[in-house]
């Protein structure tokens, strides 16, 4: 970590102070590192460089984008308002499942409502907000650690209910013994139970590259690429990049450039306003906010609902984009990933949330695997081959450091979690403000230090109104 700190110290202050430059800088640095690593791996494996790099970049962009999205949504709850919600996975599940059920055809297995996809997405976000509101009403009076237990319990309840065969909708014969279609006033649907459920599309970029009619836009494109798609695919093909990488890259960059930006702008606007100021005051001392005339309970319910809606949408854009989900996707560990991302960047800061999402995705989540691949290539090229012991015991008693390394590399996906846990502990002990340190993000729509009165500053913005 001290290396990271020294590297951080070398970053010019001007970059640190400008949030946009900082985010761009971190992304650029990450991309550069990944390009170098993938180029190296491609050369070592005698593979074509460009496709490998392109694939890796689209993958890492996707991860950065989704973790940034989720960290921003969580920042609203925890960073701003101090609501310790560790039920994120559950709210994501509500979003993804609502969308899938709303959009699934009535004849499908499980059956759904057959609504157009955009309607399903909007409906699902609204449902998530509603579920959040229902959960919030009684729970928000609790202390932070009680709220944590309630939300994680709630999220597990959601997962277990989705997992139950009771509502699966897979046995559709009303006479059959395991009949399990949910029927509310004639509207029939099911959750798919433990088998999971199909989401409307497995390739969201098709909406751009294959849409030829309104119907495609509403119910998901099927079939051949449109003019834009054909042109882009052909161009990519000419440099050896296949269409699935193009689709992935398109969607990933859409998430990063459009969705993350929208979330960021929304969050900054919420934060830098009198509304955000009340949220901050609730975090600091709720009784003080009340004593100054703020109906804190209502603020909390509102912010909980908005945050849950953002989490639901984040879930849809993330887990809902693979064509299929099952309840195990929404285990509490997903919540902890998102928390780690936010804590790495620094809770309370929107810029920190985005950077935390990027650092978490690129270095904590995906980094160990890439590092292991590079080490493996290096070691193999020096020693010829790397032993791969089957058990920990076999590795230890072999007394062969290469075998130890081989076992470690084989199990790097497990070790990653140990590493994540250690990072969480380290941050809590030493840098609870996150990598960026403490950031002053003032909750106001204007620069409070600037004392220029309004009339001289901008006559246009003056609606002729005075404060009450």
């Amino acid at each position, binding site marked *: 970590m001290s290396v990271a700190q020294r590297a951080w110290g070398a970053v010019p202050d001007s970059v640190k102070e400008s949030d946009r430059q900082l985010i761009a800088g971190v992304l650029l640095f990450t991309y550069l590192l990944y390009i170098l690593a993938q180029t190296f791996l491609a050369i070592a494996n005698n593979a074509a460089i460009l496709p490998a790099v392109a694939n890796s970049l689209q993958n890492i962009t996707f991860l950065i984008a989704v973790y940034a999205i989720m960290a921003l949504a969580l920042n609203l709850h925890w960073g701003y308002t101090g609501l310790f919600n560790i039920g994120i996975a559950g709210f994501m599940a509500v979003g993804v499942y609502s969308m899938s059920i709303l959009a699934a055809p009535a004849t499908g297995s499980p059956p759904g409502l057959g609504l157009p996809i955009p309607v399903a997405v909007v409906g699902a976000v609204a449902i998530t907000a509603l579920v959040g509101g229902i959960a919030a009403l009684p729970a928000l009076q609790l202390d932070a*650690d009680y709220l944590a*237990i309630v939300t994680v319990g709630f999220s597990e309840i959601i997962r277990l*209910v989705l*997992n139950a065969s009771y509502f699966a909708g897979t046995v559709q014969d009303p006479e059959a013994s395991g009949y399990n279609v949910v029927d509310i006033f004639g509207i029939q649907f099911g959750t798919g139970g433990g088998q999971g459920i199909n989401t409307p599309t497995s390739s969201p970029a098709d909406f751009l590259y294959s849409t030829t009619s309104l119907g495609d836009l509403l119910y998901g494109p099927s079939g051949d690429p449109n003019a834009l798609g054909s042109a882009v695919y052909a161009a990519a093909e000419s440099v050896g990049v296949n269409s699935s990488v193009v689709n992935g890259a398109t969607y990933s960059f859409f998430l990063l450039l459009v969705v993350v930006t929208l979330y960021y702008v929304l969050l900054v606007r919420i934060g830098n306003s009198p509304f955000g100021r009340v949220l901050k005051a609730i975090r600091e001392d709720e009784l003080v906010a009340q004593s100054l005339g703020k109906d804190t309970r209502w603020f909390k319910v509102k912010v909980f609902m908005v945050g849950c809606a953002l989490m639901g949408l984040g879930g849809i854009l993330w887990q809902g984009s693979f064509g299929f989900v099952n309840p195990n996707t929404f285990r509490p560990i997903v919540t902890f990933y998102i928390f780690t991302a936010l804590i790495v960047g620094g809770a309370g800061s929107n810029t920190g949330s985005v950077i935390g999402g990027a650092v978490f995705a690129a270095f904590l989540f995906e980094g160990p695997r890439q590092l292991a691949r590079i080490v493996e290539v290096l070691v193999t090229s020096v020693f010829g081959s790397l032993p791969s012991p089957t058990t*920990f015991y076999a590795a230890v008693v072999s007394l062969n450091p290469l075998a130890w390394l081989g076992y470690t590399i084989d199990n790097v996906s*497990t070790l990653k979690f140990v590493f*994540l846990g250690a990072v969480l502990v380290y941050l*809590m*002990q030493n840098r609870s403000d996150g990598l960026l340190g403490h950031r002053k993000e003032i909750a106001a729509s204007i620069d409070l230090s600037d004392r220029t009165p309004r009339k001289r500053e901008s006559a246009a913005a003056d609606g002729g109104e005075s404060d009450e």
Partner: protein
Amino acid sequence: MDVAETYSDGRRLLVERPAVGLLGVALLYLFVDLMLRLANVPVELMGVEVIGGTLAVSTFGRFLLDGLIVGLVVGLAGVGLSMTYSILNFANFAHGDYVTTGAFSGWIAAYLVGAFTLGVEEPIGRLLMIQAPSLVSAFSSPLAIVVGIILAGLGAVLTALFLDRIVYRPMRDKGGIPLLIASIGVALALRYAIVFIFGTGSRGVTATGSIPEVAIPTGDGTIPMNLHEGTLIVAAVVLMFGIHFLLQRTKLGKAMRAMADNKDLAQVTGIPTERVIRATWIIGGALAGIAGFLIVLERGTLSFNIGWRLLLLIFAGVILGGIGSVYGAMAGGIVIGIASRVSLVWIPSDFARVAAFSVMILVLLYRPEGLFGGVKTA
């Protein structure tokens, strides 16, 4: 508390907390329903069965027994969670993984002893990795079980003390939330360190088929109970009485109760805080580890996430009993265990855990001091 006060309290409760009143009515309904079912009296109204039905006493008995078994384990493990919650002021999300750690260390020991006493020829590596064929049972090698219980406690204690030294002790002055987050980090690291060594596969550890069983007659059938279930019940009950003795009769126990009540006051009055904290980890860790060993003994399979899967149930038990109360944690665990199994009378088994978690949330919302709150225990 006199009768009039109880009555007015009850009335106020109903007025101020209509949800609690509703819950009471629901519980009463379920109780009456259960009694009618056991008596095989279905009550129909216009052709629809509204209450009662049929339920074999033996089936219900088995639910109760299963519930008691889960409940004792949850209660045993809950003691440590409750104590650390009150003495160190944070919800330890790593507690479930102490249970797992205990289970693994205990079963390694049981395998080594079991192989030795049974004279089984197995490479030591396969014994240490708990890979050898399932061979241990309380019948064939009771010594292995005893040693396993001791080592399970020891393993969890050492882990808990080590983690306290490197993680929690440097954070004593931080608030409950940083500690809670750190404990999530500890939980992840500990669980996957176990996976790194033992892998994710679930393994059968007890010798199946050779365990003696008794059948408890119920009139309309029998409730089967095997030796491992009996061992679990006896061990858990003995340990619970041991804790009772420790808290009531020893100086350490008194200091711990004082700490749980008021940390600052305890410090002022010269109770050595760090020593009490260490004792808390030792007692809580040991009980968690042993609980892990026992549940594996009963279920017969061991995997890296048994403790994590139990954690929310343990939380539920602790919350039900009132955070900070040792007896509450035991009683709450047993109640949660029994409730989650008896609920199968009404709901499909998919929802047993849902029911337990719902109870936990309702208690936190409407009676955060716990079901037995207000009664001073420890």
